[in-house]
């Protein structure tokens, strides 16, 4: 080199970035800790911090966490999935229906029995499989619209939001009740005092984290979101990558829908309304950029927990649900503004 590189400036940049990254990670965990402390002090008898309530918080955050993991994958590719809440409802009612009455279609006067209703665990297994399949299929349709027909993710998933919700109500006007006990266990059972949904959420988080952080596919997801053209010119199958993130998001929503139906002992076609907003909020709070290319599963988990703690703590303090909405909105706004400041610094 004949000219000295501005190495020191680069070093300074890096140091600043490192600090910024640490700070934001710390800020996120710090916010969570601060909120917990605040609620611990302000709630009567410090009931917030009692283990029973903390388990409650985890349980209440579980559904959103599952959905938000899939949402994070989608948003990192610079996409969005508005259909997750509707998929929750569709899968909830459909899987419960398959368990209770099997799978049949009525065409005119004919009734075609595709699957009989099976007693016991067999029926539950088939219901779960059917739920996963429907969730994945909905995601696949999203992906086809986006990848094959170049519809923007916002519009494609907005359409699916309507389609899935409508399909859920078409399938069953009223909630499907009398679901098998084995299924109810998925939502209400406990293992070592911790509700099963928490384990399911932890499982989804671990799988999501492994995929995004540790596999070539995860690297593809970041590259596609960071610079789609560069990714394509590096031989990354851009279309296939997008396809799988939407399928993954549909699967996550499907799992959430079934756990939720199990919790409520009923597959209600109305389930999951506005859940897409909480999932997006969790991802964005956790540092996922809507521009794509940036975001982590760990951040999303922290984001989901912050939302869960806020919900739980504010309710305990008897803050009205409308005031809760205002506060949550402000927290999300503040977090994103801070995050963008850090990015531009």
């Amino acid at each position, binding site marked *: *080199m*004949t*000219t000295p*590189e*501005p*190495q020191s400036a*680069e*070093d300074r*940049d*890096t140091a600043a*970035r490192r600090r910024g990254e640490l700070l934001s990670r710390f800020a996120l965990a710090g916010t969570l800790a601060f909120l917990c402390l605040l609620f611990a002090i302000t709630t009567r008898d410090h009931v917030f911090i009692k283990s029973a309530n903390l388990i409650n918080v985890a349980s209440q955050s579980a559904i959103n966490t599952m959905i938000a993991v899939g949402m994070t994958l989608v948003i990192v590719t610079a996409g969005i999935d508005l259909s997750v809440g509707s998929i929750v409802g569709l899968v909830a009612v459909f899987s419960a229906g398959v368990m209770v009455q099997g799978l049949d279609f009525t065409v005119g006067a004919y009734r075609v029995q595709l699957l009989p209703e099976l007693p016991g665990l067999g029926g539950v297994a088939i219901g779960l499989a059917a739920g996963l399949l429907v969730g994945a299929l909905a995601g696949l349709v999203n992906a086809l619209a986006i990848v094959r027909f170049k519809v923007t993710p916002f519009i494609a998933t907005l359409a699916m939001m309507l389609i899935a919700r409508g399909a859920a109500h078409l399938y069953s006007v009223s909630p499907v009740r009398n679901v098998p006990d084995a299924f109810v266990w998925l939502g209400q059972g406990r293992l070592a005092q911790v509700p099963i949904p928490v384990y399911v959420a932890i499982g989804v988080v671990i799988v999501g984290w*492994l995929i995004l952080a*540790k*596999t*070539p596919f*995860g*690297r*593809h997801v*970041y*590259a596609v979101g*960071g*610079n789609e*053209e*560069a*990714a*394509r*010119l*590096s*031989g*990354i*199958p851009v279309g296939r990558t997008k396809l799988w993130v939407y399928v993954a998001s549909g699967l996550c929503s499907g799992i959430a829908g079934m756990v939720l139906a199990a919790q409520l002992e009923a597959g209600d076609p109305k389930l999951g309304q506005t859940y897409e907003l909480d999932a997006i909020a969790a991802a964005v709070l956790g540092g996922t950029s809507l521009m794509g*290319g*940036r975001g982590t599963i760990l951040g999303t988990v922290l984001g989901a927990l912050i939302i869960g703690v806020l919900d739980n703590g504010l309710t305990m303090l008897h803050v009205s649900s409308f005031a809760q909405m205002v506060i949550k909105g402000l927290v999300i706004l503040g977090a994103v503004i801070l995050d963008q400041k850090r990015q531009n610094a």
Partner: protein
Amino acid sequence: MSTVTEAAAPLLAMRGIDKSFPGVRALEAVDLTVHAGEVVALVGENGAGKSTLIKILAGAQPMDGGEILVGGQPARIAAPADAMELGIRVIYQEFNLVPQLTVMENIYLGREPTRAGMVDFHAMEEGCSGLLERIGADARPRDVVGRLSVAQQQLVEIAKALSQDARILVLDEPSATLTDRELDRLFALIRDLRQQGVGMVYISHRLEEIFEIADTVTVLRDGHHVITAPTSELSRDDIIRHMVGRELQDHIPSTVAHAADEALRVEGLTRSGAFESVSLTVREGEIVALAGLVGSGRTEVARAIFGADPVDSGRILVGGEEAQIASPRDAISRGIGLATEDRKGQGLVLGMGVAANITLADLRAITRGGFLSRGAEVGAADRYVDQLQIRTPSLTQLVRLLSGGNQQKVVLAKWLFTDCRVLILDEPTRGIDVGAKTEIYHLMNELCDRGKAILMISSELPEVLGVAHRIYVMREGHMEGELDREDATQERIMHLATGGAAE
């Protein structure tokens, strides 16, 4: 129009303009003078500094030093609005028109005539017709701009500039997309405006146009002002010599051909509208340059070989075998790599780290049992950071924060990591400082010694002559000629590239 003082002081005088970008001196003490009713051709190779100079004039970029006088008065141009205030208008290649709006709405955009608070379309139409008539445009005021031809849109841009009392009009490569007929009309308009006392800067690579329209020629080279002279005193060869006429820099290493097996053969490759029946070969251990002007189809050929764009016909053979290449993925699996001209837009994922970018095109190589191996990744990245002397504080440093030269090395490292046999480099040293350039030349030689085939697109003739064993020259989508290194001179390449008669 022309008073005594205006005759004495030029309409525009840019003096001693300096401008640096990180790692690059873009302009150094550059002068540009335009008198009322004068057409000044601004010429120079790509990267000579023309665009930067114009951006400074338009207020799109701040200058580091120098002064700008308009009508003899010092002018401060800190923002595009300042330039407009002074009557300076630039017609870029990319038009600033809203395609969905009509001609008159575009011309009066942001300053619509109103009556009683409502847009007065009648007044607008009247004013617009007058303008269009003045410049001889066929377009009507109520035509939607997006449906007009490129030539018509250009006239609308000029009409818009004139409606804002442009005194200084800069035309950046106005002829690039025009047919001969359209060009004739543009020239008629320019002559007309010259009569009306408008000062014009005409930027073009096509020398014949310059001789036809320009009164004065100003040549820039490597960010320096070389010469300003009346067109009548210059010959075509003079201009070419001034444009390229630097000594062959000694920092370009000499290379020895290891003529060997054919690594890449392209036969009759055609993509309609971009290039036609292009054939070329590159042998192992050979560096072949693809020269030509910007827009001659070089980049398009490279992208087609790499599968980034579809082709209409033609064959591509890699290592003697016909290769069906429908995507970059196919090309990479055949052992072809492409380092694009636009590093930031197409070559790198700026928000990812150095190591992640280096391994991006061959993640399989660092995957163990389905999962990325951090150890394998660090090992690979470390090796290339070391070998290419990529200056980065860490392997996780975001490439966005690296200098241009180091970014380019990351791109090269990415392709070396794929162990490709054919490497296509599109303007590999564009925007890179001299030191890093030399390193990249050395690297190319080294790769060549190791038997890689390199196809290099470059607009810098000394680079082409200094690095390549063989040179293809393209012009307007056609392969215009092939030169061996011994026969090649800057003048011969330029003649082929510009369609010069002297061959």
